[in-house]
């Protein structure tokens, strides 16, 4: 984790940023940055602070949540803090209410909580948002537990940087969120912020701040949110089912086989050996995927693969090393044709292994 520490912004950096802020409103029309402050005030009231188990080492005991109904449904991320028997919800005015867990989605790591109360401020769930890169956003959360008193959460501004698939690392483990997320250009995903709300400047819900993860591509912290359509399809059915208060929480991921867990990507279903491609022995940490040899008369030879070619893409997925190659091959569908892009000298060649490599006997 040393790299993560190193990569954190410094206090000095932020102090200078602060100085630059008043300039923002000056040069151009302020519309990208400004928001309806009444709406901001309303949204702040609907973002709650959560406290529960955890607090050991890196595990957070504190988080954020979004009130999505007047009668106390709260959306948040599936956090270790929820392992507490009765997670505690704190409203902006300091009111404390114990919550129960209604349901979770263990794949997408979402949770729906319920507090027994009425006439609470809330944000409307929306089935879709039509967001795209460059759109301005506001992010609401209790990041760093800064709003620990009888006070409202924090709001930040930024834009949607990208709407993209997230390949990330949580600690040393891979964290793959199925589907697209909203990548943000604001520093939103800090400790305690997960479960906070992302809205447009008019206060309409766009998504929910995700957990702290690092990008697998860049090894830097990612600021992202789970989009509102995912939130809607998770929470809406649970909210409409009136269930017994004492019922055990439902795991949507298990209940719905279609939600499925991500495909097992560790077992190679296809082996290039069958196509006649011999690779270097996988001895190094990161063995380059060079073709060591091609069997005479094989599919690979017919397709024009040669020794010393470097495999750079398989079906447009970048191949970093032999382990990567195995992972990508393993993730292919049974009947998916394999297209390999080879780097030979300074030329790129694309070959199709027409007759698919025979699968290992199963």
């Amino acid at each position, binding site marked *: 984790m040393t790299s993560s520490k190193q990569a954190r912004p410094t206090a000095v950096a932020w102090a200078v940023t602060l100085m630059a*802020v008043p300039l923002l409103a000056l040069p151009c029309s302020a519309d990208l940055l400004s928001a309806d402050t009444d709406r901001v005030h309303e949204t702040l009231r609907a973002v709650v602070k959560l406290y529960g188990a955890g607090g050991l080492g890196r595990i957070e005991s504190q988080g954020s949540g979004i009130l999505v109904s007047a009668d106390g449904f709260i959306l948040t991320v599936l956090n270790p803090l929820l392992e507490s028997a009765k997670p505690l919800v704190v409203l902006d005015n300091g009111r404390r209410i114990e919550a129960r867990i209604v349901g979770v989605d263990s794949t997408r790591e979402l949770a729906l909580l319920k507090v027994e109360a009425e006439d609470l401020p809330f944000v409307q769930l929306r089935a879709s948002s039509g967001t795209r890169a*460059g759109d301005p956003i506001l992010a609401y959360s209790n990041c760093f537990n800064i709003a620990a008193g009888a006070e409202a959460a924090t709001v930040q501004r930024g834009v949607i940087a990208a709407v993209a698939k997230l390949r990330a690392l949580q600690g040393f483990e891979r964290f793959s969120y199925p589907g697209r997320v909203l990548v943000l250009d604001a520093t939103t995903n800090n400790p305690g912020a997960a479960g906070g709300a992302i809205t447009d400047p008019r206060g309409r819900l766009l998504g929910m701040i995700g957990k702290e993860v690092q990008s697998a591509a860049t090894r830097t912290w990612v600021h992202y949110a789970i989009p509102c359509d995912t939130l809607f399809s998770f929470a809406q059915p649970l909210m409409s089912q009136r269930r017994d208060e004492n019922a055990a929480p439902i795991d949507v991921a298990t209940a719905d086989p279609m939600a499925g867990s991500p495909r097992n990507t560790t077992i190679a279903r296809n082996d290039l050996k069958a196509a006649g491609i011999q690779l270097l022995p996988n001895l190094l940490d990161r063995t380059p995927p060079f073709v060591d040899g091609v069997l005479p008369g094989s599919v690979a030879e017919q397709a024009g693969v040669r020794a010393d070619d470097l495999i750079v893409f398989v079906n447009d997925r970048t191949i970093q090393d032999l382990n990567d190659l195995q992972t990508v091959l393993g993730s292919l569908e049974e009947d998916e044709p394999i297209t390999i892009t080879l780097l030979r000298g300074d030329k790129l060649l694309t070959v199709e292994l027409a007759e698919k490599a025979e699968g290992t006997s199963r």
Partner: protein
Amino acid sequence: MTMTRTLPAIVLLLAAIPLTAQGQSPETSATREAVARAVQHVAPSVVRIETTTGMERIGRVRKGLGPSTGTIVGADGWIVSSSFNLAHRPAGIIVSLADGRKFPARVVAQDDTRKLTLLNVDASGLPVPTPAPKDAIASGAWAIALGKVWSNTEPSISVGIVSAVDRLDGRAIQTDAKISPTNYGGPLVDIEGRVLGVLVPLSPGGDSVEAGLEWYDSGIGFAISFEEILSRLDRFQKDELKRGYLGVAFGGKNRLAELGPISRVAWHSPIASLGVQRGDRILAINGKTIERYGHLVQALRPLYANDVVTLTVERDGKRQTHEVPLAAKLPVYERPYAGVLVDHAKTGVRVRGVVPGSPAEAAGLRAGDVIGEVKTSDSEEPSSNSQAKKPSGKPPSNSPLDKGEQKDGPLDKGEQKDGPLDKGENRKDKGEPNDVVTLAKVFDDVQPGGKVELTVDREGKTLAVPLTLGRFPLALPEEVPSTPLAPGEWELKSSEAERDAAWSYAPKTAVKEPLGVLFTFRASDDPTAKELAERWKPVLEKHRLLLAGIGPKAKRWQRSDLERASTLLEDLEKRFPINRDRVIVVGRTNSGAVAEAFVNANRRRVGGLVLLDGGRLSSPETHPDEKLAYWIGWSTDNPKKSGFEQAAQRLRKAKHPVLGGERTTTAKTYPPADERQRIGRWSELIGAL
């Protein structure tokens, strides 16, 4: 998670304050649309770079090996990216254009100063975006950062403003848009869709390729002016872009301090080729007035090797303006070694002795020889380009930078005409160096491995003696000739009230021949001055050395003690003729660091540093006017001995002459007899040419 994360959040709370009630729909917002248009305009010029294999660690940073971003700079397949993106040295680089076409790319060149890498792919007709004129870039204007890491089709967007122009000594534009490996190599775009610059990690704290990564997403990000990149492109296509060096140093590095006189002119540097000397003042660079050290850095830091600078220099109230190309690398001076012990008292260069096993011995030089002329020859054209030299006047130069400037720099007083060596008195009147110093300067320029031809007077006959200069020996010769001092009375003198605080031990009567000095900084368990004097006496006489010692005024060494030491040395310099090459500062255990600090502050007065089980062992630059030889000793039972061994290796690598090694510490009294004798012999060696 970590404490550093707490601060940004607090500041962000404040950052969110300037929200005003507009109630405008962002979808119809003019700025939102302007941003979208600007992005669309530049997007076709933003490429994705994918790499295969490579190192996972860059310095101390664990680097992601995912895709990165590049920006098209030339229609014929020219792409610039951040050097960080390729620092893992991938086996293959694939560029994906915005239209989906993929090309293998080759690395053409790197710009060290701005950490850019130029790539080329076999394509043509690529869209080069419009640059924003650098002069028109203003703080506060919109700045949009684009990257291709998140998607191969649409660029990712971060919106901010220009925070500063000409940051990091004029190298970069600063922005508060979120800059990270997500968009390093991508363009920073203005609201009109012109490219302000190419995004890179940079840091005022370091020049390594990953320096600046620690500021990712912090609100401090940097971009290299796109207009500048385009203007340099033809140079970049042909060659590596290296930082340019002038070769000048000043007393300190405080950027706000007023610029004093030049404290050091680097050996064979561009500025040395102009004849500029220590003590001259720099008034202007490229027409910009230089008042403070910071101005100098701002004027020079953005420049590249071979850039020609215009320099206004002042000496004795007279101004001169020069033009000189900067160098990519300053040559490292290595002390040459012939093994000739010379007689400083006589006019001419009289050989007093020859070190056994030395190049001088191999050349057949003998005690009693008088060196008259020295001829140097250019190694490339040995016959035609050879030139005869008196060991006087300005030595010939062999630096390629000096070609054409070899005669005289405009500030030089002019080369000495050939003439008999024994007219040295004239030179003395003018404050010219004596013959030994001049011969040493010729050797300095020839460097180890170089050849000279000496004209030697031996018993009335004139001989030509070819000599190949060597390196300072790696082992102390068993025998070094020495000429002992005539016996006489010596006295121990305390120059401060407390007896052992500052003292010297020297002959009572005047001495003609230049002496060396053993200048000891007292370790807490050192013997008394009297005991030291008694133990060293035979070595002092044999090798013509004085002994002096200083202890800390207070309980611990302080900065003011360096001044006291300087005064004590000055006193000896006044009383005796002193050979600075043989002024030896000694530090042991807890006085090592202070001895070293004294030497670093008095490089021109000290020629040797003895560190016994102590010192920090920093490695300063070598310089012919600041010759320094090291004697580094460590006890067999010193737990840090491997550190000393490594430091000695490091110093040798930096071309410093180093001797010493393991010390026998069985003797109850310091210094043990064998150590005294070895240091005595070494004191002769470091005084040899």
